[in-house]
């Protein structure tokens, strides 16, 4: 187990106007009123102990969100911490199976695997008990630590299960097991209405977000963008398409290569970058990377980059360098890379699935596609209609500013906390 505590609650440096540095920076990007709303919402929560629990400190969207969400809560006077459970390879293989099954794959999880999953949670519960039993609000992220609730009979606070996965059509035997595990929570949070399930508690709909101030999304100078062309042997004078995602079959990297090949017939200079990393809780990553490399063959215009989890500025520069960004997932909990690219003014061609649908307004901020052929057609269209490409990119950035920045995300978490701890119903007046 490891605990993350950036600073003691309420100890943030205050400016003369009463606003901390971090909050002031967000006010500059998202607007003063957005930060003022956060301050008002956090007033009834001041001093509360809030614990987030997930299964990885680095890699993947959940860790990236918590890295900023927790310090922001602290700056708002909430005693927020972030705990990470620990497991062995067998545990992560099982939780990966959970992930795949919840996204609809017909995966069998044996009784023995389930027993081990529960044992690992028992071991983590022993270490986390003081923090979790004492907390006013506990957020458990995804299935990995979900059994912790049942292992804390003396808990005093509100427990919320935050599901980041597309569970719209789960493999039923696995969902039946998990449903029993999560039904006892006081509330759950899903990214989309389509993911909500038949559960005996309130289910909030809170899409995740990107952090506009993080290394991955902050503005970059031209030097840093030029540097990635040189570093990865890319030609700045030729068209570049990019997909950034973990090497995971649901992200369909092989489908992206097919789309690239279909489009390249009409844009012979086209280059493709598939940039991904691995997460410590994803044992399938290397196998999918090998499949992707095999599909790329000897094509020197396909660049498969295995980047370390902290290569945020590199990813930022690649997204800014690209003409078009793809996220051709066949299943997607949300797909933060879509909002990241849109924030950089890029139209995104995304799989017509899950949270991607919430971000791409078809024909306005990008295109939703279901096949490599569909993706190839949209790539050709955008590369030959540069004015449309620019117009869509501008709409995309504005759409993200309105809907997918961290301040909106935090506001909705705080709203749920205020409603649940105050037993409020449909109107909360601050």
């Amino acid at each position, binding site marked *: 187990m490891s605990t993350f505590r950036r600073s003691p609650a309420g100890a943030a440096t205050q400016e003369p106007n009463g606003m901390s540095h971090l909050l002031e920076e967000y006010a500059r990007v998202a607007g003063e009123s957005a930060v003022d*709303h956060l301050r008002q919402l956090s007033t009834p929560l001041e001093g509360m102990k809030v614990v987030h629990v997930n299964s990885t400190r680095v890699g993947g969207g959940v860790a990236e969100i918590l890295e900023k969400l927790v310090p922001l809560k602290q700056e708002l006077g909430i005693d927020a911490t972030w705990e990470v459970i620990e497991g062995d390879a067998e545990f992560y293989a099982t939780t990966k199976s959970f992930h795949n099954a919840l996204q609809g794959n017909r995966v069998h999880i044996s009784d023995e695997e389930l027993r081990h999953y529960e044992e690992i949670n028992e071991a983590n519960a022993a270490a986390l008990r003081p923090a979790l039993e004492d907390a006013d609000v506990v957020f458990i992220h995804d299935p990995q630590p979900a059994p912790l609730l049942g292992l804390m009979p003396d808990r005093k606070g509100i427990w919320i299960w935050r599901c980041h996965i597309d569970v719209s059509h789960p493999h039923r035997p696995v969902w039946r097991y998990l449903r029993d595990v999560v039904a006892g929570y006081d509330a759950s949070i899903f990214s989309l209405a389509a993911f909500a399930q038949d559960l005996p508690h309130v289910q*909030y*709909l809170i899409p995740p977000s990107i952090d506009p101030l993080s290394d991955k999304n902050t503005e970059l100078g031209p030097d840093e963008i030029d540097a990635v062309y040189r570093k990865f042997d890319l030609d700045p004078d030729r068209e570049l398409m990019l997909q950034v995602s973990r090497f995971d079959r649901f992200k369909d990297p092989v489908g992206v290569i097919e789309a690239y090949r279909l489009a390249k017939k009409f844009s012979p200079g086209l280059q493709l970058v598939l940039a991904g990393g691995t997460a410590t809780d994803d044992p399938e990553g290397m196998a999918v990377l090998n499949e992707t490399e095999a599909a790329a063959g000897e094509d020197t215009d396909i660049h498969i980059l295995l980047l370390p989890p902290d290569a945020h500025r590199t990813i930022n520069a690649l997204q800014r360098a690209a003409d078009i960004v793809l996220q051709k997932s066949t299943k997607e909990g949300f797909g933060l890379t879509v909002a990241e690219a849109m924030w950089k003014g890029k139209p995104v061609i995304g799989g017509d*699935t899950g949270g991607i649908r919430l971000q791409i307004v078809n024909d306005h901020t990008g295109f939703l596609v279901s096949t490599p052929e569909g993706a190839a057609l949209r790539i050709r269209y955008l590369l030959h209609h540069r004015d449309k490409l620019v117009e869509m990119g501008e709409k995309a950035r504005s759409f993200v500013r309105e809907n997918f920045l961290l301040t909106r995300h935090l506001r*909705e978490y705080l709203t749920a906390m205020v409603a649940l701890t*105050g037993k409020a119903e*449909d*109107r909360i007046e601050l």
Partner: protein
Amino acid sequence: MPKRKQDGPVASDGGFAIKDCALAAIATGRHAQNLKELRDEIETIDPACLLYHFWAGLLRPIFDDPRFNNGFARWVFQSLHNQPLAERLSVIDPTDFDTPDGLRRELVDVIEEELDRSEVLPWTSREQQFFFIRSQIVVFSTNRTIHDPSELPDAVATMTASSIFYHFIDARRRTPNGVDDFSTWLTDLQDVKYAQLCTRLAGVDPYFKTLLEIREELLEVFNEYLPA
């Protein structure tokens, strides 16, 4: 602990308290894949869902065809491809009904008529089902109160989109007469010189526009009737 109350815009000193708001969406777990299912769900769904699908869309940037101005109409058009029904659903004005049940009855009647006429029942894909959502509204103070109607143009000019939503849209389900907060405050002042302004405000159609467009129209009205 936050207060829970329903009130109008009038501050304790008689001024107009400018507020702001945000919605938190809550899934109901109920959904529809065809018109019969939509009707059956509307028959029994929480009234808060009806209001959410009529109004909450205004708090998001609009890219879709603005002819269809509520969630039911949009889904019928986009997923069931039934334009005539989408048009009939679009003309339903929730403020015409004193209670959510009146609105519910009207929706069900319009859908029933279509079902009576239809020989086939179109289904949408499982990916394009209609999901019923309700919301909690959080109301924020802005610490700004105006005391004279002549201050309205300046105040409205700097309001956020969500503040416009609170005072011009949400007010309709919160105030006794189902009107916007500006009209409620001006009427409370009991000065006949504002009667025409209130009539003009009633003519500002909250459908077919984004909240920022509504703000511009309100600004024009206030500038016309409340010259500096």
